[in-house]
Every structure is written in C-alpha cells, then in structure tokens.
C-alpha cells in the first residue's frame, strides 16, 4: 500500500477530539476518584466502596468525578483508590485496602478539608516533594510494564482514555506499512507466544500471510482455564483497546478479514468489557469497513467458550467455535494452514497481541532491549499462595525467581520457610529452593522441568505437602482431560489413583517407580499439550522432593503435616490449662473429653482431623499438637461416663 497520509490525519483527528474532551473535563478542576473495579477488586469489595463514595459525595454535596478503572495488579491492596485533587497541590494519591468506611473517611477528609488522610495512603502516583511515590516500593519499581502499562490507570470503558495515551497510533502506522514490513518488525522483536508454548509470533504470522486463501481468521485466545491464573481476564477488563489494537494489526498483517475473541463465559465482566470496546472502536472507524480511511476492513466478534480447560488448546478451541465438542486434533495441519472452517487461522494469546502495539510504536530494538536474548520482552504472572504481596506482576524476562518472589512480592509471610514454587499451572512443575536463581524465561524454565505456561505461579511455604500438591493438579487435569487419547484419559487416572493412595498412607514401594514410568509414557505418548504436560507436577515433585514421597510410602508420615490420614492431633497435658473448655466446644464431632485433673484429651477414634481445636486453643497454652505418623499421638482412654452425647443419643433410639 502506498504511504497514505490520510490515515494518519484521520487518526490524529480522532485523538485530537478525544484529548479535547478529556481536557475540557480536566479544566473543570473537579477532583477525580479512580477506583479499581476489575473482577479481583470486586471480590475484595470494590462495589461497596464505590457505593460508599457515591453516598458520601451525595450526602456532603461534594463534587468529584468517579472513574472505574481496571486492575493495577496489586491484589493484596484491593480495593485501591487514586484521588487526583488538583487544587490542593498534592499529586494524585493512591489509597489501599479501601473498604466502605475508609472510603467515607478519606473522601470527607481530603475532599472536604483538603487533608489527604495520610494513614491510608499507599503512595503518590507521581514524583513530588510531599508524599513518597509508590515507585519507591519494589512491588512498583522492579516491575517493567509493557502490556499492563496502562492497566488500572485508564478507564477501560472510555476509548478516549486510550486514545489520549497515543492508543491506536500503532495501528495508524501499521496501516501505512506493507504487510511484510509489520511481520518483519514482529519477527525482529523476537516476540514469542505468551499462551504457553512460546512459539515465535512473527513466524506464525508469516506462515499465515504466505497462505493464499479466500479468507483468513485471527483468533485471540482468552480462554484462560488454569486454576489460579487471571492475567488475561484482568488485561481485558483493564485495557481492552490495547488488545484490540494488536488484534487488528495482526489481522491486517496476515490479510485476515475476520477476527474472533474467544473468552470463557465465566468471565462476564471481561466479555462485556471487550464487547463494549469493539463497539467503541467500530463507532470510531477503527473497526469495520475501511479502517481509518484505508482499504482494510475487519469485523471482530466475541465468542463465549464453554469453560473447559482443554478448549484453550488451539485446535480444540477451533472445534468448539465450529460447534463441535472441544477435542484437540492431531497437528499438522496447524491452524495457520487449516484452521477455523478450513481457513488459515492465527491463534494468539491476549498478552501476545497486547504486546504488539508497543512493539510497532517503539520498535523491535526497544522490545529486544527488555528481557533476554531468547525471550525478549516481559512476562506476566499471577502470583498467589504463601506470599506477602500476591497479584499480577509484569517483569522483564530474565528476572530470577528469587527477585520475583522475595523482592517484588515480599517473600513468605509469617516467618515460614519457602518450600517450592509451582510455575505454569497444572502443566507446570514444582521447583525447590535450589532453583530460586533460575532466570524466568521460556527456555530456562523448561530446562528446570517447569514451564512458562500461561503464567500461573503458586508460592508454597514449608506447610505444603508436595505429594498433595501433585495430587491436586492431577485431579484437575484428569477431570479436564477431553477423554480422547489413551494416555491422557486413562494414564492420568492411574497417576491420580496412585497419588491418592500415597496421601492416604496406602502407598506401596513399587508405586514410586510406576508413577515415574507412567508419567514419562504419558508425556511422550499423549496427543495434545494437555496430556504431554500433565505429568510435570508429578515428575518434578518426584525429582526434587523424593524424600517426601518416601516418607509417605515407607513411614506413613507426611512431613508437612498436611495429609489427613497421616496425621493426628493430641493435647499436651503439660500445657493444657485446667478447666479451660475452649477446644471442647470447637470440636464438631465431640471427640474431646475430660481426663485427669480436668485436662482435656482427644478421642482418636472420633477425631476427623479438622484442626479446629488447634485454632481454638488459646495461644498462651498452645497445647494442641499435630503429629505424623498418627501413632505418635499418645492414646488416652476415654472413661465410659465421658462418651459423646450424640453417640449415646444414637444408642437410646
């Protein structure tokens, strides 16, 4: 296509108009209150907070503009407010864990009296002399945001906010380029697919571009079925236009005339947000016929997936869009050769497509300057588990696990020891302490036996039982197996059964070898990525935590005191206080009785090992002890006159 200044002019007009509208708002000098309203914030009570703010504004006759934004990534601090009160001379201020009460206090103090209520402040959003900026915290300063740069800062439901930040300028420049030129830039940038496998994006686009076909399709994969992972949902809820822009650029580059965003139906807010963004983009001429006055046209629709994990696998995803059962197909042919309705189809992850606009805007070299040689750019993880500052973290590739877990996310709470990190969701692996200095990138993680996966990361402290963790993930993969191929359908069931047996103390010595061999076979023999990676949690935990497996199998002991069948609670008579009845009432099965000296003891035959007594025993006594194997608990006879009521009721009737 010849250089067409019309495209840039059209774009600049759009952006100019958007800026004018926002400028007019700012000129009013009214304070603005940005509140995080993504799914994660709502779960932390953001809706109540917002309601409280509306109420207090109304009641006190205060004038402020409330703007719902997406997620800042700081889930430990949700709900978050950013108040910009320009007439006070303070910079925009970020407040954390703002419940309804705090919201009222903050609004009245700051908006009414001009006092920013320092006790609730997380930090200032800009450098200034009055309030320490959030950038002094490692959780902010050590991150590097490319995909999530604007998340939580702009209104995802108002395209003007994105345009104001030069949004869609990458599309305007791309539309002036030759298609090959765009593909060349993406190839040079070294961008690799963020959906798990890390396939070079430029190469994938080139394949699709080179196919001559009647129609081509681009699909954004936002299925995100990993338990605990929510990056893609959050990105859509927080900045849908960056994703759309990437999607449109991809469609233009490969010559597609149809695009699809595949979102799981369990993500209603994400579905509505992307639908709204598509409508806005269409109204602005950024989608539909003759985009920005060029001769490129594209329609985008949202497809709501049924929520099966395996539907995130690209061939199963395509089957499901075609109205069939979501079952993976043998590849080749790959979707770029023969995808949706037989047309060449590019399937890319949300984060992959969202990385594209910054690459076009700032160049391949800039992108390459972030991250490592083999994995340029950034990685986004949802960090959960035993960690102080969980949430979404975007870091440069190559950052070590130690930096991410201890420096950025604050380490393990409660003076506990770090035990393992599980990376890559159900298909990833558990890495122990000696891997903490592993750089986070596609190749290093795979080498260690884990994988980048879609970006789930679970941090586990010393109280986690690695056999139980492996069992948990296998339970998930077995349930989610599509049932098509032998290894995954039946093999994972055997793995799960054996792990169940081991956690119950019924493991046999030969089980460990069977587990390892079967896991290897499943990895080699399965049809799709689900089966090929499902054994990873088993294989890595066998490799790095063999001692725990052996303790379960040989000694019937769970070193982490986690597996119910292998533990027992007892009451240390030395410590038990005479006559304190706290534990008695807490026990749901009346297993606790009174023994000599009015001290308490546990009837092991009734105990269901819920641990309630341990929680309820006052800390000054701390008399309840958990042990494994259960035989370590001293047996104390229950006197006949102390039989539980319920049992006696039963005997009466």
């Amino acid at each position: 296509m010849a250089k067409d200044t019309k495209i840039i002019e059209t774009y600049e007009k759009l952006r100019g108009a958007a800026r004018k509208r926002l400028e007019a708002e700012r000129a009013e000098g009214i304070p603005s209150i940005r509140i995080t309203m993504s799914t994660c914030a709502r779960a932390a009570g953001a809706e109540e907070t917002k309601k409280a703010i509306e109420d207090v504004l109304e009641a006190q006759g205060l004038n402020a503009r409330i703007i719902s934004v997406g997620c800042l990534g700081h889930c430990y601090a949700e709900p978050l407010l950013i108040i910009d009160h320009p007439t006070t001379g303070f910079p925009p201020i970020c407040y954390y864990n703002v419940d309804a009460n705090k919201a009222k206090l903050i609004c009245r103090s700051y908006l009414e009296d001009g006092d920013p209520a320092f006790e609730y402040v997380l930090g200032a959003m800009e450098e200034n002399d009055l309030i320490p900026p959030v950038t002094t915290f490692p959780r902010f300063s050590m991150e590097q945001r490319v995909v999530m740069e604007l998340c939580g800062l702009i209104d995802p439901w108002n395209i003007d906010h994105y345009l104001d930040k030069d949004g869609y300028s990458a599309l305007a420049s791309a539309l002036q380029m030759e298609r090959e030129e765009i593909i060349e830039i993406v190839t040079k940038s070294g961008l690799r697919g963020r959906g798990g496998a890390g396939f070079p994006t430029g190469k994938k686009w080139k394949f699709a571009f080179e196919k001559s076909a009647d129609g081509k399709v681009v699909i954004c994969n936002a299925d995100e079925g990993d338990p605990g992972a929510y990056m893609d949902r959050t990105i859509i809820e927080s900045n849908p236009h960056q994703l759309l822009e990437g999607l449109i650029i991809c469609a233009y580059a490969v010559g597609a005339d149809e695009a699809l965003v595949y979102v799981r139906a369990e993500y209603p807010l994400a579905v509505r947000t992307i639908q709204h963004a598509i409508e806005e983009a269409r109204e602005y001429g950024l989608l539909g016929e003759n985009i920005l006055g060029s001769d490129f046209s594209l329609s985008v629709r949202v497809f709501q997936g049924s929520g099966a994990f395996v539907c995130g696998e690209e061939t199963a995803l395509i089957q499901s869009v075609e109205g069939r059962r979501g079952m993976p197909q043998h590849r080749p042919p790959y979707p770029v050769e023969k995808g949706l309705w037989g047309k060449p189809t590019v399937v890319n992850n949300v984060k992959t497509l969202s990385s594209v606009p910054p690459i076009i805007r700032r160049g391949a070299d800039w992108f390459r300057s972030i991250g490592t040689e083999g994995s340029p750019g950034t990685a986004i993880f949802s960090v959960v588990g035993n960690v102080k500052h969980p949430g979404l973290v975007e870091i440069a590739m190559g950052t070590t696990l130690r930096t991410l877990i201890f420096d950025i996310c604050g380490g393990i709470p409660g003076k506990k020891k770090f035990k393992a990190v599980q990376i890559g969701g159900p298909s990833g692996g558990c890495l122990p302490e000696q891997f903490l200095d592993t750089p986070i990138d596609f190749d290093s993680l795979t080498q260690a036996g884990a994988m980048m996966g879609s970006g789930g990361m679970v941090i586990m402290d010393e109280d986690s039982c690695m056999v139980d963790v492996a069992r948990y993930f296998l339970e998930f993969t077995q349930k989610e197996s599509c049932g098509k191929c032998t290894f995954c359908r039946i093999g994972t069931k055997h793995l799960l059964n054996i792990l169940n047996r081991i956690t119950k103390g019924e493991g046999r010595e030969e089980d460990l070898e069977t587990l390892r061999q079967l896991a290897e076979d499943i990895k080699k023999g399965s049809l799709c990525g689900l089966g090929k990676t499902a054994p990873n949690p088993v294989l890595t935990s066998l490799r790095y935590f063999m001692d725990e497996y052996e303790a379960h199998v040989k000694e019937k002991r769970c070193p982490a005191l986690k597996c119910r069948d292998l533990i027992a609670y007892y009451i240390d008579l030395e410590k038990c206080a005479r006559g304190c009845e706290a534990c008695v009432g807490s026990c749901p099965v009346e297993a606790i009785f009174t023994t000599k000296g009015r001290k308490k003891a546990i009837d092991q035959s009734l105990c269901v090992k819920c641990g309630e007594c341990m929680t309820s025993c006052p800390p000054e006594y701390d008399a309840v002890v958990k042990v494994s194997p259960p035989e370590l608990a001293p047996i104390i006879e229950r006197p006949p006159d102390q039989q539980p009521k319920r049992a006696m009721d039963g005997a009466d009737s």
Partner: protein
Amino acid sequence: MVQIIVNGKSIEVEEGQTVLEACLSNGIFIPNLCFLKDREHPHASCRLCFVEIEGRPAPVPSCTVNVEDGMVIRTDTPEVKRLQKSAFKLIMSGHPCHAKTCPTEKPCTLMKIAKHLGVGLSPKPLEKLERDIPEVVDFGFMFYFPYRCVLCGRCVHVCRTQNEGKPLLTFARRGFDTMVAFFSDPGENVEAKCRSCLACINICPTAALVLKADERKTA
C-alpha cells in the same frame, strides 16, 4: 510408487497413504484401533501405532504420517514397544475382559494386539479401574456397553459421514468417564434410518455397540 525401508527391508508402496496403511498392506503388523482409511484427518487417539522414523526425535503415531520416498521406519524398537505396551495396558485397565460373554469373534482385536506385543490381557502392574458409568446404556434400537468401549471414535466418525456432518453418536463426559452417547432430535424417528445403516455397529472393534436383537440372541 515410493520406496520405504521398514525394519531394514525395502518395500515399494503407493504414495498418499499413511505409514500405518503401507505397513499393514505389506504384512507388517502395527497395533491400531482408531485408524480409518477414509478419514481425512487422523483421529490418532488410541496411541498404539507408534513407530520410529529416521530423522524424527521421538516415536510418532504411524497413522499421522504419510509415506515419503526413502523414509526409514522401524516398528520394533524398544522405545516403540514400550509406548505401545504402555498404551495397551492402559486400555486394558479400563476394559475388563469377559471373553465368555463378549460377542466379538475370537481372537478379538485386543487379543491380536496382546499377542503381537507379547503381553497378556492383564494391565499389570497397573490396577483395574472402575469407571463411574453404567454397565449398559440403552440407545433405543441398540445397546452400548461402556466397559467394552475403548473410545477409538470409529463409530462417531462413520456416523458423522453417514449423516452429512451431523452425527447421532458423539462423545459425552470428560476425563476417565468419557463415553459415547446417542442424541437424536426429539420427534425424529431415527430407528428406520439407523437400522438400514448399522455402520457404527459394524465398525466397532470391541462389540461395545450391539443391535438389540443380537443381544437377545447372545443373552
């Protein structure tokens, strides 16, 4: 015609066919359950037909690869045998063999595979697995025996072909409890249509689908 070398022996085979077909039609047995000649896209679900092909890092299912001139194939390496035995044992762990009441012609497909692999019909060291599924399901004019079914998907495929892409048979449930199910539009009288077809019953390798009349005969 192209030349391929299988287990050291050079054979001439027709182009456009899979390695599995080429071997089978030249008297070289490779275990298989899900393969169907007319399938445009291999189902590749049984995972029994692994072979090693020179230049490929790991064994591949031979039903997914087309022959190429000069291709060097081995059907009997330890790695191939290991995967085949492993897949077979997995299948047998979910397929209790009741040879006496089973209406298949003996030796059945599974027995032939066991013989080829030099293993018995027991899944050892794996345990027999129970499935949370019914013993038999009434599909109207035929019965479906989930425990016999090895989920090769052949019935679903032929049904799809017979009904122009809208099969009455499909897969249901997930994971280990996956089974075949029969769906017809309410009000549609499929019995006559199905009775004149019976493609699914004829293609099933394990007699998991049985016409009701036949069942009465054997019972």
